[in-house]
């Protein structure tokens, strides 16, 4: 650490002042003169034919400006929403691609599907008018039960996807894996459900748009995690507005967790309609709409088998998964249960043979796409649950079984059998540290003490690996991804020496404004309060790929480092000129250019000033100005890894599971701001425990109605559900990025579900409970206990 605010310092987040004092500027805060307000009429049915839509009464409703339906979009030749990742099935055929109209034309396919857009002088008037729209639906049977999506006779979601199958994909050689199973001393089998989740960002999705008749320019404000990508999709595929005529701004955004990566119908409509209405349009989702229409996460049904030899070495892993895509393929949906899931199934282990088969299904539910961790939590849940189950079956200590199979430190870089090459890592010290912090040795005494109080205590491990820092562009291209995954940075000094750091990533809670400023401060010596981090506006930032997949520091931060290199290189030339020295003799230390062995010195600010006021300046050799761009395309993913240990107590009378202690030891490589990292880990653990114990999107299996459609029925994890977390770190720097960093944004949510559920199973094993599905709600746990008691009685 070079200073109290440089790399490694616990700098208080500079953006928090505006967030905590109500002075942040979110989409809904925008004051737009002459604004109109949009309300979307959503389908009340999971599956229905639209026989007719009568807007005649609604058009006469007070304050109505315009009403649009799917037919208007067809007439205007608006494209459908796209899925940007082509996954090829096991025969090499691209996945089935049913159309995804921006608004339904003749069929609605989930509760919340968009049917009409009403634009009025006020939001209430738009809503009043929507109530006057008469839609004649012919209700059809719906399929919402994933496990039955491929059944013969199941209601069909799209004619273009016969049998509701989007793809049947595989990785690994099944015959080799089967041969290994034939020789196994022990096989552990498991059927699990990875429960469907609803993201629930604090700020609902919102959009506002304005069309400038004079220039023909559109401006769209959106709660996007990646404004340039949103613009690209809208321009190239959906609306046909040229990129240079569409400005997308994602101002302060209150959380995303993946759900704000994608291009949605409502923001598309707001943008499209702005020119037709001729006045600005504003829309903010109501919470009910968020529940119904934000892309959901997870939702897998999996069968897995692990083959072990007599000593407990893993011989092979076989996984069959059905993944729910929902009613339409969202932007990155197809990649999540394939390249972000099955490629992670080696975990931290040397399992030599892995086969995974993934079938993606469409159902009459909201689209499913990436949600914090996106595929890696599902993979970790499979591996870490089956490993703990194997340990229990073999009566081995779960930590011991893990250690026996860890990839050894000397084996890195390590090529897994499922495509990825892990760049670095050292797993045994991580689990040792976690066990020390969690006082694993003292657990049995704590279990006995809990028993004396009538409580069942359990402990569970989860040793995760994840691939993030998305991503090497050529690999993404080979795997069917439609975009590059580099990041951009620009460092733009002003003549007075302060600086704008422009990033193509986007902050919606992660604290980039602080972390990125720390990088620049550390590298260039510019004081923190002289640095402004700029992001989120396609007109003021260089094209960038946005924020998701724990990529912003590893990729965006690396781009910033490259830009600082260019600043220093140019500054050296200027300083050499000013000091009348040879540029080869100039060094840059603590914000000042010096000539080694002399007292000659030029502070960076002086070089910057000379660059903008080039009166004494080598104009023949270099251009004026101090403004450098850089793009960084990573050589590999980064591979954070760690171990979480969860300790729970269960009240067998009520079924309530209480998290008593939760330890996380992570290897995130080098850490820039430990406080921000802790916040990310805390939040991640809470989301992961949320999945394990509380959260579950439930659709009525007959009607397809969303039963968990509000906070009254969808259980969010809350502060009083948690103890203080115990964290630790081990560091193996990433060898291929300039900062040596790995991502930390998703790790907590990736590892926690398995740790919690292993603890739950460990607690309930003594009373004969074999399996509890997530979420382990009181009802679910109580019913599992009842089931075990009935089984024992029989």
């Amino acid at each position: 650490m070079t200073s109290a605010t440089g790399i490694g310092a616990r700098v208080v987040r500079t953006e928090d002042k505006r967030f905590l004092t109500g002075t942040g500027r979110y989409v809904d805060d925008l004051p737009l003169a002459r604004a109109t307000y949009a309300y979307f009429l959503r389908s009340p049915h999971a599956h229905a034919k639209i026989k007719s839509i009568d807007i005649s009464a609604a058009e006469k409703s007070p304050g109505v400006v315009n009403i649009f339906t799917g037919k208007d979009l067809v007439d205007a030749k608006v494209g459908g929403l796209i899925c940007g990742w082509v996954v090829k099935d096991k025969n090499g055929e691209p996945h089935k691609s049913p159309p995804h109209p921006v608004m339904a034309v003749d069929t609605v396919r989930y509760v919340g599907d968009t049917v009409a857009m009403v634009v009025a002088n006020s939001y209430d008037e738009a809503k009043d008018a929507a109530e006057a729209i008469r839609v004649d639906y012919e209700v059809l049977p719906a399929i919402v039960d994933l496990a039955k999506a491929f059944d013969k006779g199941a209601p069909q979601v799209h004619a273009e996807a016969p049998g509701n199958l989007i793809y049947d994909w595989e990785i690994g050689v099944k015959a080799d894996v089967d041969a290994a199973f034939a020789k196994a001393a022990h096989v552990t089998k498991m059927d699990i459900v990875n429960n469907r989740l609803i993201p629930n960002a604090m700020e609902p999705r919102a959009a506002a748009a304005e069309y400038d008749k004079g220039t023909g320019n559109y401006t769209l404000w959106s709660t996007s995690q990646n404004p340039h990508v949103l613009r690209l999709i809208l321009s190239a595929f959906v609306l046909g507005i040229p990129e240079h005529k569409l400005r997308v701004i994602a101002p302060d955004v209150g959380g995303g967790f993946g759900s704000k990566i994608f291009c949605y119908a409502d923001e598309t409509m707001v943008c499209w309609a702005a020119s037709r209405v001729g006045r600005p349009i504003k829309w903010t989702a109501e919470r009910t709409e968020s529940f119904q229409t934000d892309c959901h996460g997870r939702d897998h049904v999996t069968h897995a088998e692990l083959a072990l030899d007599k000593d407990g070495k893993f011989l092979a892993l076989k996984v069959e998964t059905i993944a729910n895509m929902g009613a339409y393929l969202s932007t990155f949906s197809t990649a999540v249960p394939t390249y972000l899931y099955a490629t992670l199934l080696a975990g931290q282990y040397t399992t030599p043979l892995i086969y995974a088969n993934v079938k993606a299904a469409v159902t009459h539910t909201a689209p499913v796409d990436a949600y914090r961790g996106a595929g890696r939590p599902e993979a970790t849940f499979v591996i870490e649950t089956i490993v703990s189950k194997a340990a229990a079956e073999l009566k081995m200590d779960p930590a011991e079984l893990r250690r026996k199979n860890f990839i050894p430190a000397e084996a890195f870089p390590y090529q897994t059998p499922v495509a990825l090459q892990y760049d670095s890592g050292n797993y045994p010290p991580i689990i040792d540290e976690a066990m020390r912090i969690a006082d694993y040795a003292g657990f049995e005494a704590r279990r006995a003490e809990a028993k004396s109080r009538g409580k069942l205590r359990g402990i569970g491990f989860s040793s995760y690996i994840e691939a993030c820092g998305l991503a090497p562009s050529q690999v993404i291209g080979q795997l069917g991804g439609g975009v590059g995954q580099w990041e951009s940075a620009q460092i733009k000094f002003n003549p007075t020496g302060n600086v704008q750091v422009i990033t193509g990533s986007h902050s919606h809670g992660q604290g980039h404004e602080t972390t990125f400023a720390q990088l620049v401060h550390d590298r260039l010596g510019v004081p923190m309060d002289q640095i402004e981090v700029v992001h989120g506006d396609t007109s003021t930032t260089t094209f960038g790929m946005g924020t998701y997949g724990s990529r912003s520091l590893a990729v965006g931060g690396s781009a910033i480092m490259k830009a600082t290199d260019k600043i220093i290189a140019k500054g050296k030339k200027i300083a050499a000129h000013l000091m009348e020295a040879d540029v080869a003799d100039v060094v840059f230390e603590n914000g000042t250019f010096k000539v080694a062995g002399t007292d000659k010195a030029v502070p960076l600010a002086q070089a910057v000033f000379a660059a903008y006021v080039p009166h004494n300046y080598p104009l023949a050799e270099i251009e004026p100005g101090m403004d450098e761009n850089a793009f960084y395309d990573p050589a590999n993913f980064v591979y954070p890894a760690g171990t979480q240990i969860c300790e729970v107590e269960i009240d067998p009378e009520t079924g309530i599971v209480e998290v008593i202690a939760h330890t996380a030891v992570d290897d995130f490589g080098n850490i820039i701001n430990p406080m921000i990292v802790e916040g990310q880990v805390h939040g991640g653990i809470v989301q992961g425990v949320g999945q394990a114990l509380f959260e579950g999107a439930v659709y009525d299996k007959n009607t397809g109605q969303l039963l968990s459609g509000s906070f009254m029925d969808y259980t969010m994890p809350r502060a009083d559900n948690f103890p203080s977390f115990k964290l630790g770190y081990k560091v193996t720097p990433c060898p291929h990025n300039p900062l040596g960093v790995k991502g930390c944004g998703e790790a907590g949510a990736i590892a926690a579900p398995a740790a919690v559920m292993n603890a739950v199973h460990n607690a309930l094993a003594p009373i004969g409970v074999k399996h509890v599905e997530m979420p382990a709600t009181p009802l679910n746990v109580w019913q599992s206990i009842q089931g075990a008691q009935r089984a024992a009685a029989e």
Partner: protein
Amino acid sequence: MYDFAYHRPKSVADAVALLKGKEEARPMSGGMTLIPTLKQRLAKPSDVVDLGGVKELAGIKVEGGNVVIGAMTKHGDVATSADVKAHIPALADLAGHIGDPQVRNRGTIGGSVANADPAADYPAAVVALNATVTTNTGKHAADGFFKGLFETALGEGEIITSISFPKPEKAAYMKFPNPASRYAMVGVFVAKTASGVRVAVTGAGPSVFRVKAMEEALSKNFSSDAIKDIKVPATDLNSDIHGSAEYRAHLVGVMARRAVDKANK
């Protein structure tokens, strides 16, 4: 929400006058249920008569063997009242666990009791303590006041003015909160009073109900052991994604035993 006429009378008589003759007029106390209902457009009243300006309705007094709580008294004030804590600590405890701090500083006892939400906490206390509900037109005994789902014995234009709770010898309330909403999924109020033992259950059924078998057993022996084998039938209990009727029936037993233990502490 839809448009409505808003009134803020200063007296009960004015409030009643405003409500009378308007079929779609709704009184509003703390608004903790009505406002969200309006926002979701689930109700379309012509008039909302806000009782917040009726000062005579708020306040807590001790009258002989009773604690009398004005209808517009907020949950937070009941929870922190020295009188309630001294004479019916179980009631203060119950009030202190309704909703969250924002709800407790807006929501009122009269509003909660008049609304008769099946998952509200207060109805269990009203029935278990054998309280008397006083209105502008008369008095209602606790038994018979709660008629069913969101249904009470209140007539048209009848407004609760206060609720009188007899001081119990022992009492306690145990709530099993719905994991999502934290309303009572099962709440059991157990009270031992001069007139006998009462066990009232909220959250589990369409309306608050008494468990006579438990009352009889506890009258003989006020200990959790005395009711450990008493099962509540699951028939007619609520069932949803958070709790089956069987689970709720089971929880009635657990919460009742824990309430007795708490009352005995």
